[in-house]
């Protein structure tokens, strides 16, 4: 049993547990905090995969910016308690069945049939992290410049849209 495997299993258990905690806690604030924990664990997975920049971006963008936005809205609306009952009776079991079927199907395909062919075993040595960061910057601003610019326009549009949607209407019809 390699140290990598032990690390992977512990982290995987932590990721699944925090995701389930997000799902099962009735308080929306606890839900969001469990999701922050889950994002931090996933960032460690990115480090394990040799992608340090993605890991740091995960911590700052996801666990930082996005989850702060979530917590801000949850506390702004005061919607921290979920009203129990009054659910559609078939909705929750049906959703659970669908999710379990999906994960069993995927696990069967991936584990029983093995990895897809054409994916070779990876080089065992991690590339130097600063070198890989440089490579990624070259790819992002060279080959993928147009998608990068489109993404920035998308962010601008989302920002303007969010302001327009959330703006208080002055004396208008309600």
């Amino acid at each position, binding site marked *: 049993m390699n140290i990598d495997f032990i690390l992977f299993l512990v982290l995987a258990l932590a990721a699944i547990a925090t995701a389930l905690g997000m799902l099962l806690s009735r308080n929306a604030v606890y839900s969001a905090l469990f999701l922050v924990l889950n994002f931090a664990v996933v960032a460690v997975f990115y480090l394990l995969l040799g992608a340090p920049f993605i890991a740091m*971006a995960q911590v700052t963008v996801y666990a930082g*910016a996005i989850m702060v*936005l979530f917590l801000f*809205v949850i506390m702004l609306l005061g919607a921290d308690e*979920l009203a129990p009952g009054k659910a559609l009776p078939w909705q929750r079991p049906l959703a659970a069945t669908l999710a379990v079927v999906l994960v069993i199907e995927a696990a069967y395909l991936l584990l029983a049939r093995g990895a897809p062919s054409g994916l070779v075993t990876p080089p065992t040595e991690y590339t130097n992290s600063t070198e890989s960061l440089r490579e990624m910057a070259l790819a992002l601003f060279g080959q993928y410049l147009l998608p990068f610019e489109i993404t920035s326009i998308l962010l601008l549009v989302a920002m303007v849209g*969010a302001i327009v*949607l959330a703006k208080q209407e002055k004396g208008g019809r309600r």
Partner: protein
Amino acid sequence: MIPLSWYLTLSAALFSIGMFGVLARKNAVAILLGIELMLNAVNINLVSFWRYNNPVLMDGQVFAIIVFAVAAAEVAVGLALVISIYRRRNTVVADEIDLMKW
């Protein structure tokens, strides 16, 4: 080295948990949290395929960054919609937002 299929299975499990959250939760903010979890699982897939296929090409990481940006945009617009709905109808329960239901 950990097999690729382990990462993919973990990602599938996280995706399924997120999907259950989207299907079963009633709070609109909780539904958005489930969508975040699903996007995150997709990102694990992208990065692990990058690592196991050809780490010299940086395509997988670039796609992961673009998914980050799209997730941020989606959250901003989604939460603005939730605030707007809450202001007009005074609820964030998805079952009660049935204005377009016939």
